[in-house]
């Protein structure tokens, strides 16, 4: 039986349908505007495509190692739910020799619907390890000899936290900590960057018996999401 299932599964996807916003902080006083497109992979007319969820993001290089950012979700907005993210990303360590860095990104997800004005707040923490294999992201200068193109790959975990202890019909909330692992690549110049991320969502949610045909060749639970982001970087004035 599939009662409500596709609908319910969409909920899951709307709730976690975004990549890590920023893995590496911007340079101090840099600004960035980015557009993200992507979602879970589905089979569609013999093709595998991502559901086209969208988000628009703005970021500002607040400190040398810290960038603050905000995002809105136009897809959720179209369904009457204002979903906004406010967060920061901080580089907590960088190994100069190996060019491997670790960043942590706490985010506050705010959701408000226009139908009954229900509000939900979800803290989220992304932890990523990245390897800067091209150029030098760590140097905050345009030093002579720097390659114009930089690139890094990353591997990380998105952690969502449910603050409510109960849910509908006075049931106990079973999980207050939800995990979604991700892997991605980011490359580009000082002005434009592009990233592609693959995320595994809903690790423990059955993906069978769903009207939407999710593409997941490795498991009967969860969905694989693919996200493409374009960043326009505005240099510090």
């Amino acid at each position, binding site marked *: 039986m599939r009662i409500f299932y596709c609908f319910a599964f969409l909920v899951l996807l709307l709730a976690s349908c975004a990549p890590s916003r920023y893995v590496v902080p911007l340079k101090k006083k840099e600004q960035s505007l980015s557009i993200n497109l992507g979602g879970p992979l589905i089979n569609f007319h013999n093709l595998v495509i991502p559901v086209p969820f969208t988000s628009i993001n703005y970021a500002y290089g607040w400190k040398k190692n810290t960038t603050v950012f905000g995002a809105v979700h136009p897809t959720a907005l179209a369904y009457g739910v204002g979903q906004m993210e406010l967060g920061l990303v901080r580089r907590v360590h960088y190994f100069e020799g190996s060019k491997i860095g670790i960043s942590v990104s706490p985010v506050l997800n705010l959701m408000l619907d226009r139908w009954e004005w*229900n509000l939900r707040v979800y803290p989220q923490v992304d932890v990523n390890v990245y390897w800067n294999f091209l150029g030098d992201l760590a140097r905050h200068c345009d030093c002579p000899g720097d390659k114009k193109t930089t690139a890094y790959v990353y591997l990380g975990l998105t952690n969502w936290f449910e603050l409510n202890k109960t849910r509908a019909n006075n049931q106990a909330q079973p999980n207050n900590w939800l995990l979604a692992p991700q892997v991605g690549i980011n490359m580009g110049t000082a002005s434009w960057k592009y990233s592609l991320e693959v995320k595994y969502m809903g690790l423990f949610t059955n993906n069978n018996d769903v009207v939407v045909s999710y593409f997941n060749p490795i498991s009967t639970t969860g969905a694989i999401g693919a996200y493409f982001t374009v960043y326009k970087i505005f240099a510090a004035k």
Partner: protein
Amino acid sequence: MRTLLLLSIVLLLQSCLRLDSNMYNNQKITAYHWDDYQGHVDFNLDTVPSCNFSFALVHELTLLSKDTVDDKEYKISAVYIGDYATIQQDTVILYCHGNRDHMDFYWPRAKLLANVGGKNRFGVMMIDYRGFGLSEGDPTEEGLYQDVTTALEWLKAKGVSSSHLVIYGFSLGSAPATKLLAQPRSTLMPSKLILENPFSSAELMVQDAAQLALPGSFFTNVKVNVAEAIKTVQQPFMLLQSGDDKFLKPASHGEVVYKNYQGSYSEKHVVPNADHSTLQTTWGLFNYIKAVEVFLVK
């Protein structure tokens, strides 16, 4: 960022899309095929010839169901299995099917019920909610209630009395079956309630899938809440629960509904290893119809 926020607020206030229509797995067809249906079914009765009965007792019906929201009338399809000549004396089971395709898909289940207590001992009525099968319109929550009420009115017009009527809801069907006992819309009130793998509420289903306690209003206007409605049901109640229902976890659905029942009599049958759609086949068809019979004649 400020521009983005202002734009978001405007978009939020202008938005009107909902996911409600994604909730239903209805299928439109051009004709019913009953025993000759070749589409997918959860089980069939080909190997149980003793369950067959004369097709003279199978009556295809078209009923008019009025919409309480837009005041339109929809033609909805129904089937009555039984003898019109004795309908006033017979006990009738009004079967509210689940959220799949149309009545052909549920035909083996209706046939089984027509064999409870012996061949055609009880009359069985089943309808396709609007948007399912040959029924006009699109499915809505209000439509579920109104279409089942239309079936009740048809039975009343045929002379069926409340004491001779039992309502049975499977999965999605547990919503109209329970709601119409809790908040009756017809003077014909079923005297017993059977629920097979019911769900607690639309909101809890969303939360089961999302794993987050998101409000239902984020996604749907549907307010189905069987776990609340059952609290005011007084009629005797039987729960048939698949022990290994992977779709509706028993602990957060069937068990909650059963726990919330505060009426005069209840009994529960949990079938170990049965999944959402395999209760009858896992339990054994004759064990199933025997349990239903015992409850009906109690």
